[in-house]
């Protein structure tokens, strides 16, 4: 990465290091509006940093998608259903077709 900075506008633009240090805060919507503008201003003219943001956003998407890989297995589900006194499947419940993949 390069240490670039921009003095062409009223927005103080972070250099690459400061920008990527704010990557997670940016993707998690934890920055103030002013900080978001500063990061956006850097990303708009930097060639090195946007791919990092794109990749980490894809990583978070992949982790979110992996949520479907794990849940309650069928045996556990039935035991809990019995505990709750629910003998019949609930029509509103979304069944898991394959149960937990790692058991």
């Amino acid at each position: 990465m390069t240490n670039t900075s921009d003095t062409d506008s009223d927005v103080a633009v972070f250099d690459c290091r400061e920008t990527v240090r704010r990557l997670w805060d940016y993707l998690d919507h934890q920055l103030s509006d002013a900080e978001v503008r500063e990061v956006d201003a850097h990303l708009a003219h930097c060639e090195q940093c946007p791919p990092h943001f794109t990749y980490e956003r894809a990583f978070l998407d992949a982790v979110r998608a992996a949520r479907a890989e794990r849940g309650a297995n069928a045996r556990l589900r039935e035991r809990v259903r019995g505990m709750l006194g629910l003998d019949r499947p609930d029509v509103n419940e979304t069944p898991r077709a394959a149960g937990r993949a790692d058991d």
Partner: protein
Amino acid sequence: MGDVKRLRVEQSPAEREFGEAALRCIDDVARFAHSLARNGDDADDLVQETYLRALRSRHTFRHGADMRRWLFTICRNVFLRTLERAADTVALDGDPRDDTYAVVRLHGDLVASGEDRLVDHIDVGPAIIRALDALPPVFRAVIVLVDMEGYDYSEAADTLGVPVGTVRSRLFRARRLLQESLRTVARDAGIGKAVHHQHGSMPA
């Protein structure tokens, strides 16, 4: 762990509504329990004990409240009381953003090795779960709550009983560790090689 037999046969409509709402959260609770417990059996025990205590405490659940969040809190409390209390503490020094900088450097390595398309691979889901399982519980928990269940930092902090800043620092470290672990798991599973071959990149 606990007595898991059904507590009653006849139910009022409210009790059935409670049970059905609770059961709809079981996949979420199971994921969270897995993030806390050492293995699948412990996680299943934790889920059962969570539901048993929820059933006993259902009079404290406010109608219209967030059932999933309520069950998560019970699950965490059960875990802390019965299983691995010591595992819920970890000291993280330094600025959490240093971990952010580290994942960017790792991404640079992945680009150089041609493994940067790993996250788009069709089999990355199971690899992520295996990589997640390799992390210490405190890191698994924040990944599950924030990145899988969609909690914001404040909600995760409430669920885990830690400050928001602790969630943030653990999350940043967890994502770094998960990406490092994912790279190893994926290489062991041959995903990295497939990516190399598919995209014609130079090997690491």
